[in-house]
């Protein structure tokens, strides 16, 4: 019975995480936060009432489910002080564009010169790979501020 209940609970958890079922579909015994990136998933009421699971089992199960959901949401949040952002939708095209972005910036920094063509290329590639674009902008800004990158007269930085 315990195994069956746990199996159902795990299946439901997978459904919540992968299928993004509405939290409203399940009963909760705690007030749900109105805002915030990390959603707290509560154990459905029917499992709370299941006599086959002890309170400690339920608490352990709840902690596990919350950790799973929190981890998934955390992957979508800022990492490393906001300098890098996990992409919400990483496509082959964006990966290629991101690679080109880094190559453009690295090449400019290597020669110590930022041209109008570099700026135009970055602007175009950012449309396709905005996450990598942010990182590229930061790298350019650091180099410019350290005066390791001279901006070509008449060229805009970005």
């Amino acid at each position, binding site marked *: 019975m315990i195994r069956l209940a746990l199996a159902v609970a795990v299946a439901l958890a997978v459904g919540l995480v992968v299928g993004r079922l509405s939290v409203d579909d399940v009963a909760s015994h705690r007030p749900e936060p109105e805002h915030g990136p990390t959603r707290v998933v509560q154990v459905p009421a029917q499992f709370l009432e299941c006599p086959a699971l002890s309170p400690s089992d339920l608490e352990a199960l709840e902690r596990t489910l919350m950790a799973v959901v929190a981890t998934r949401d955390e992957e*979508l949040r800022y990492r490393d002080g906001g*300098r890098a952002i*996990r992409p919400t939708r990483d496509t082959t095209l964006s990966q290629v564009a991101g690679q080109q972005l880094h190559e453009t910036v690295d090449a400019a920094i290597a020669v110590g010169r930022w041209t109008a063509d570099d700026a135009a290329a970055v602007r175009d590639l950012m449309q396709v790979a*905005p996450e990598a674009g942010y990182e590229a902008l930061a790298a350019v800004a650091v180099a410019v*501020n350290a005066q390791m990158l001279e901006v070509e007269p008449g060229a805009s930085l970005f």
Partner: protein
Amino acid sequence: MKNFHIIGATVLASILAFSGAAVAGVKVKGDVEVVTSQYGNSASGAIGSARNSKDSKQNIGCRLSGYETALYPYGWCSATDATGKAAACVFSNRPDFERVLATISDDSYLKFHWDNQAKCTIISVTNQSMYEPRK
């Protein structure tokens, strides 16, 4: 008598010139300045002054971008002074900066600060009549 007229006209012209200056309002040139020191880094300048400057280097401004595939809007500010000294900073997920940048106009005076990772730490916008508008 002729000399009297000339002197009178000169005095009158002077009075008009001074009174004209007095009612024209305060005008400040907001050339772009990039300052880096042990006490902090900042770039500032009036958008109109940079635009209207005689040299081909001065510029200052910020951009805020939102992308469908990005989690948060992000942006940057950059400036170059008359000598070609440039500076830039980036920011992301900063609603406070977004609100400030929404107030920029053609005759704003912009100032931004950054840390050693080129992250913007302060962005301020001054909208004041003394700064020249873009021509």
